[in-house]
């Protein structure tokens, strides 16, 4: 048993989208820009050429936060959304009725519809591919050129992620909502 989480050195992200393709290839994700488990958020630049605000153009790599208190799980009428014993939030395609309550409940917009399985899908921390094979990295973490992600067991005090979270400042997204995300943004 583990409690998986991810720390993101998001300031190193160059918005190259290697993580997105790695995720799609590993997990057989549908094509289409709205069909992805992982994305990089960034806003349009502020200012007028050539006086532009560099910081307004920051890149925010993101995916499902694997909330400890997941609103998506709370609202799911069929309990299709569940917590695995490793703390991963997953969806059971057998039980999903596509009511899309979870999509609306998720404050992070992490979910989308997989048209093949007719299920709401999202990041699984590669649970049924890489982790199922005993691998210890996720596809998005492993491939990243600037090594943005550290994936690991939050319950293991000796894991690299625990160490990093002890020693470096970090923040969670929308922390005020009490969802207790397991994605940590390192500053």
């Amino acid at each position: 048993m583990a409690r998986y989480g991810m720390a993101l050195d998001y300031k190193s992200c160059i918005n190259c989208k290697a993580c997105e393709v790695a995720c799609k290839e590993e997990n057989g994700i549908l094509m289409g820009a709205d069909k992805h488990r992982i994305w990089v958020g960034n806003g349009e630049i502020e200012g007028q050429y050539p006086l532009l605000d560099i910081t307004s153009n920051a890149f925010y790599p993101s995916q499902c936060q694997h909330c400890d208190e997941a609103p998506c799980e709370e609202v799911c009428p069929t309990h299709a959304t569940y917590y695995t014993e490793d703390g991963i939030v997953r969806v059971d395609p057998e039980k999903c009725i596509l009511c899309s309550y979870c999509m609306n409940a998720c404050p992070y917009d992490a979910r989308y519809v997989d048209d093949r399985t007719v299920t709401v899908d999202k990041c699984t921390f590669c649970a049924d591919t890489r982790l199922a094979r005993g691998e210890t990295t996720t596809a998005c973490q492993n491939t990243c050129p600037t090594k943005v992600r550290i994936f690991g067991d939050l319950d293991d005090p000796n894991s690299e992620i625990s160490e990093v979270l002890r020693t470096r400042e970090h923040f969670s997204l929308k922390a005020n909502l009490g969802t207790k995300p397991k994605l940590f943004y390192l500053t």
Partner: protein
Amino acid sequence: MEVEISRRKFLQGTVAMSVVGATAATSLLSNEHGGGAKPGVVSFHNTKTGTGKSHDVATLCEMCVNKCAALARVENGVVTKLNPNPLFPKSKNMLCARGNAGIQALYDPDRLKYPMIRIGEKGEGKFKRVTWDEAYEAILNGTDKFPGLSKIMDEEQDNRSTMLFCAGEGMAEHTFKQFYQAFGSANWLNHASICLQTVTSGYGVTLGSYPQADLDNAEYVIMAGANRAEAIVTPDTMDIFKRTKRRGAKLICVDPRFTNTAAKSDKWLAIKPGTDLAFVLALTYVTLNENLQDNDYIKKYFNGYEEYKKSVLDNKYTPEWAEPITGIKAEDIYTIAREFAAAAPKAVYYPGRRSTFAKNDFQLRRAMAIFQALHGGIDTEGGLIFGSKLALQPHEGLQPLYEKAQARAVVKSTDGKGYDDCAVISGGGSWIAWRNRFLEGKMPYKVRGMFCYKHNPMMNMPNSAKTAEMLKKMELVVTIDTMPSDTVMYADVVLPECTYLERTDPVKTFGGVEPSIAVRNKVIDPMFETKPVMEIMKGLTTKISKPLFEISKKYDEEIQDAIEEDGEEETYAEFDLTLPFRHTQEELNHHAVAKYEGAAEQLHHHGIFYPKQDEYYKQLAINKFQYYPEKKKYYSTRGGKPKTPSGKVECNLASFASKGIDPMPVWRDEYAFSVPSGKFRLLTGRHAQFTQSGTSNNAMLRDLMPENFIWINKRVADKKGIKFADTVEVSSSVGKTQLKAYPTEKIAPDQVFFIHGFGEESEELTWAYKNGGNDNKVIEDNIEPVYGAAAMHETNVEIRKV
């Protein structure tokens, strides 16, 4: 800190480089069907990796030029995933978006699958499927539509140079080049003159080598005209944006556009296109005027320092002088020069690796190299480095001399200064100059046919209309490629190569701070009837060698004499074109690394080898690997000594003066940037999700960016009534193209930009067909004067909403 990151926001907001904009909100293609030119084609599959039996094959990526190490996961004979191979010091356990999408190159439904010969009109794209032997036969003896080699060579009386050979970059380029050498032509054109010719040569003549940058240890980096966040180069991209930056190194980005590199920099300087030379000269002025240079280094390793100093100071290349030319504030130039000097020698003026943009590019690269050297940052940790390289055992090629083969089709200029087209003829030639000379009928002899390997001249060089004309005029065009590109449409004979995942390529040595040898191992057997170029060459030469020798016998008196003396068999042995292709690639690779114990085995199983790898290589953390212990790295191999024949930094090249080239970098008024009112300067460039036209049909990558958009300044667009995703027509004196608009403040009001490689017109490409705009239909065929490299940023265009 509170950050809003949502998918919907992403969909609406992220247009930037990866234009996913408005069109992307609806799924572009589902997994089961494509939405391209060919109706009813079921074409695209994306498989999930399984948990059952699988094996990994160590290969090297070929989605761009970097050759990052990959491990291909194979399940039931199908490649299901490409993962980074952590063993390679160059790529340091990464694969970019393209590297990950390599699977789609392998399973692209539009791939060339079998040999074909033309049955329609030239360029019409009508072919007939044939066997390999029939294809070779057609090359030798032609059909009713086109002449074969025997006719051409006989009529040209064995002038082997009547055939042009051209190739794109790649690990098997060497194999094809051996065919060119054995064939005996003098006309070889490669991608250099539409790529990095001036930068490699500029550094080459100044420092004796095109160095690497130790961005891992540099404390101050000026990145001008290089966009490493988007034009990925390994290990530079990883080094600069990860460790170096986080460690506190300062990154100055100099670019007319606000790129992703600018977004990651500490300071972005919006420079006017083509004026980088003035910027470097002003930095040099501050250095020399304020005595910031490394006098010890200069004393030991400079030639012509006093002359150059005098030139820079006398010409008064002050920051105040540079300000109106470059658009960069004088005070910024002072600050940067001083900061650079303070950080030196751990300071890098990044050499870059890109196409020639302006006509002064060669002089710019010289000025950059000299500026770097003035601060002593050569062959040293944190500066520019030469590194070390593991030697490979060469193998035998064949370079016979044919009496009737003419020299390269260039013409010496009448004023005695260099050649008609440019001052210096490099090994790769000047593509544009050669093409135009051919079209204008100014060749010293007839060139009648061409072999084209992994190269797409229709897309890759300015003025596509002229390239089309050239291809039509060529009587015999043979293309070897994986995809039915625009160029392939003009072929007479099409030979389908397998993709990089289906072949073993020549083993390659990678020099640098942490040298290694790497190999691309075959992952799965070639699909359809495709073959690796090695086998294609073997089959083709087996067919044509003897018949061509018979023609040579007719015209070549030296061969006739040799036969008289040594007999036919012995003479033919020297002209037997099959010779370089007798061994398998695996055998040749074995031979190449024979002197390193265990290397062949290691390369076969793990892809990467270097001495003491077992002892040195360690995983230090989840994302961190050690390749060499710090003390064993090759930061300095020559104590700072440049690699020029003189062992000095060459400031003043007298030999160039005699060719009409400025012997020292100086600014000339004609270099100044100006755009007639109502027009825009067209900029082009690269992108982290596409590699030129080579990846344009990759379904996975198109999913990230469905098409290219033209960047136009927001305020200008407002005035012209151009909104996001409006279609605009871009036109110049040579042609026009259409694409959608992306109004943004990331570009200057008098400039526009779009990514190269889109807008192909081959109907055989489901996703690339007429998708977005083609820059080379619009870019005028300007060449820079030294090597004849294409100057890509010298074209002004008009924009019209359609």
